[in-house]
């Protein structure tokens, strides 16, 4: 039952170490799920945290070891696989539980386990009053497992396991404080919207599988796909090239998981979860799964320029619109959430223009600074006794200096100030976007300015000026513990320096990062030659607009040169209202998709109970329909059909009884009439 297909032309290394990268967190999760309550009651919160942090760190260590052993291989044979067990082998479908480690997985796993471990540590400080800490840590570990499966899985199907697994953990962690209805509703929304994406993803997988099947050989295993997809050329379904359809379906999945238009609505709501969760899942790792997936299948997407065009346009729109929404939010986590959506848009712009490595690069730098921002926000929220409204903050830099400085560094990074991580990765994307189409660059360029503005609006509203919190909270304001601040510091350092992994050639670097990924994702060649001067000019422009954004924020929120209120009144106030209400997308979905589904379900249930069964229950169903219309739909349509028949037979029974009058004359009449009729009929022929 072992996979018979071997890829002959690539030297494959195998290592049984690989499986432990996801399995150790899984083990940690299992221990905490099954024994967590006992551990916590015996050893306190520290016990469960130790299990979780330990397994996460152990996984990180394994990743590092794997990473270095990968570096030791020749550039073109950097692929390690670990086939654990056969999984599904039915007909042409042959999938094993197997993991693969290549440069792309390496980058992802380093981010996941590295930043993940930091956030585990941070969580110990953050969840210091949580009675169900065991459940929290178990879920975090389970998330690590699922995410690692997503990026290490060697087939689309196994990737999908991780893909939905992270969704499950996301659901459970968003609704972690499940006594509050708002939290669980947000969790459900996240899961269901993600499922819409997963629906697309599945269809993409099916179409890919069967197209490959009719092209000769079907497979879902990543390392076999590049050699096979060539057969898809020229195939079409419903008049569309299959490659385009496949990639579009897959991209639907990506829009769900990575919160792109039109499925981004769940991410802001997901901020209902504990802040470390927002940092880990809804900023640094899970939401980037879509980007990873496109990177993983870049050879396929490269075959579908039409899809890439769609990706780029949607991504640019997402980046821009999410940024505009970010301007008007007052909830500190909501601002960061829209910022995440916007930054994910950047990553997809990169994917859409074929700059795969640039997208992944931004993914990495974003993981650092966005995790840092979220954790910093968490630190603030923790200090403010779970107050998230920025209008009630202010001046916090005096109370929590370490949080302030790390937050500031991360904000500088995301704004794209030269030298920081954000600068390198964002410029790489903007440059590639410009090469593809200047219009895309304009969108990204504008978004960069807005990003700088709302980030510094956040910084200034939170950390500058007078403290607007009430007395009680102000008295208790304090810097967070070392469990929380040290991860912040490490992340801040990363935000400053991670960019140097991929310094572009124009700035004298060698772009080591892109080079490292090249064996996996390759790169698309752009036609035409562009001068270095142009590249410098664009760089300067984006730095300039970021500076402009920061300056504007400073003028408004520190110097109060303009009031924020007057800004909100621009254009009759409606732009602000639109931003504040997130372009009314939630309302739109509520009125169409949600209302439509619920209406249909109510209608069907009514139909089921009234018509289908009613034809069996007949006369009674008429009254029941009346009852239904007045709101009680628990009675009868499909069922009605059945009951109608029964009633009809019953009524017929009544007729027969009435003929049996008891009078002899009737009886005799019946005989005579029937016999006469029979005779008449018989002799007629």
């Amino acid at each position, binding site marked *: 039952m072992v996979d018979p297909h071997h890829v002959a032309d690539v030297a494959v290394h195998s290592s049984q170490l690989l499986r432990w990268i996801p399995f150790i967190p899984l083990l940690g999760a299992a221990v905490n799920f099954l024994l967590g309550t006992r551990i916590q009651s015996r050893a306190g919160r520290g016990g469960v945290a130790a299990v979780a942090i330990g397994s996460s760190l152990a996984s990180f260590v394994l990743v590092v070891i794997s990473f270095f052993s990968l570096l030791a291989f020749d550039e073109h044979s950097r692929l390690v696989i670990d086939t654990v067990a056969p999984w599904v082998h039915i007909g042409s479908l042959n999938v094993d539980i197997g993991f693969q480690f290549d440069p792309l997985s390496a980058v992802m796993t380093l981010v996941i386990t590295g930043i993940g471990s930091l956030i585990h540590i941070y969580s110990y400080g953050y969840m210091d009053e949580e009675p169900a800490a065991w459940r929290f840590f178990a879920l975090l570990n389970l998330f690590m497992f699922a995410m690692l499966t997503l990026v290490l899985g060697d087939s689309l199907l196994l990737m999908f396991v991780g893909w939905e697994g992270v969704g499950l953990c996301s659901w459970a962690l968003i609704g972690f404080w499940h006594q509050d209805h708002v939290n669980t509703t947000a969790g459900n929304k996240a899961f269901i919207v993600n499922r819409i994406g997963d629906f697309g993803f599945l269809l993409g997988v099916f179409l890919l599988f069967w197209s490959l099947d009719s092209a000769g050989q079907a497979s879902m295993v990543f390392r076999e796909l590049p050699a096979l997809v060539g057969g898809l050329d020229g195939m079409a379904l419903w008049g569309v090239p299959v490659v385009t359809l496949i990639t579009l379906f897959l991209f639907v999945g990506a829009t769900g998981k990575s919160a792109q238009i039109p499925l981004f609505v769940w991410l802001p709501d997901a901020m209902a979860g504990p802040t470390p969760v927002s940092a880990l899942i809804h900023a640094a790792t899970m939401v980037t799964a879509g980007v990873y997936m496109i990177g993983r299948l870049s050879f396929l997407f490269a075959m579908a320029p039409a899809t890439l065009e769609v990706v780029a346009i949607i991504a640019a729109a997402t980046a821009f619109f999410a940024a505009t929404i970010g301007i008007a939010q007052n909830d500190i986590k909501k601002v960061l959430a829209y910022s995440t959506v916007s930054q994910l848009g950047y990553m997809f712009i990169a994917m859409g223009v074929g700059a795969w490595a640039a997208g992944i690069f931004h993914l990495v730098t974003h993981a650092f600074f966005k995790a840092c921002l979220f954790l910093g926000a968490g630190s603030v929220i923790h200090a403010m006794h779970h107050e998230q409204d920025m209008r009630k903050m202010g001046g916090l830099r005096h109370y929590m200096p370490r949080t302030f400085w790390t937050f500031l560094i991360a904000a500088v990074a995301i704004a794209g100030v030269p030298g920081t991580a954000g600068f390198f990765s964002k410029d790489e994307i903007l440059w590639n976007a410009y090469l593809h189409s200047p219009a895309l660059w304009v969108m990204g360029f504008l978004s960069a300015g807005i990003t700088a503005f709302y980030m510094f609006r956040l910084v200034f509203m939170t950390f500058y000026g007078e403290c607007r919190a009430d007395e009680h909270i102000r008295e208790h304001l304090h810097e967070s513990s070392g469990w929380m601040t040290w991860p912040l510091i490490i992340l801040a350092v990363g935000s400053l320096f991670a960019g140097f992994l991929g310094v572009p050639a124009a700035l004298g670097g060698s772009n080591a990062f892109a080079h490292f990924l090249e064996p996996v994702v390759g790169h698309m060649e752009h036609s035409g030659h562009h001068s270095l001067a142009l590249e410098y000019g664009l760089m300067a422009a984006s730095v300039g607009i970021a500076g402009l954004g920061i300056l504007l924020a400073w003028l408004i929120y520190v110097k109060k040169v303009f009031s924020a209120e007057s800004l909100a009144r621009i254009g009759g106030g409606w732009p602000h209202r639109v931003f504040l209400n997130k372009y009314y997308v939630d309302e739109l979905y509520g009125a169409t998709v949600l209302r439509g589904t619920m209406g249909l379900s109510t209608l069907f249930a009514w139909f089921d109970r009234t018509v289908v069964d009613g034809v069996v229950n007949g006369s009674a169903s008429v009254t029941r329909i009346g009852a239904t219309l007045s709101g009680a739909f628990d009675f009868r349509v499909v069922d009605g059909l059945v009951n109608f028949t029964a009633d009809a037979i019953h009524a017929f029974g009544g007729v027969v009884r009435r003929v049996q009058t*008891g009078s*002899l*004359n009737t009886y*005799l009449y019946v005989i*005579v009439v029937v016999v006469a009729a029979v005779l008449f009929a018989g002799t007629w022929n």
Partner: protein
Amino acid sequence: MPEALGLHHFLLVGAALFCMGLYCVLTRRNAIGILMGVELVLNAANVNYIAFSRYGVGGVDGQVFSIFVIMLAAAEAAIGLAIVLGIYRRSGSIDVSQMTSLRG
């Protein structure tokens, strides 16, 4: 016996009797009247048997049959009258259209 009188005349008489009997049975509401109708039906058959026996190829079988029928008709009338008498004693009426306690 005149030439004109043939089998079919007897059969017509029989059929007419049969119909009259049925008519009587259907329209009478008096129990005795109905019993008389039944007698007519039986006798219609008797006419047939005897006619067939005389004109047909059946030998004396038909005549024997009719004797048995007469006997049975008498028995039936006796039983019927006894029942009717019982009913009359109890309810003072022999109108069958009143006897509808068993119905439905």
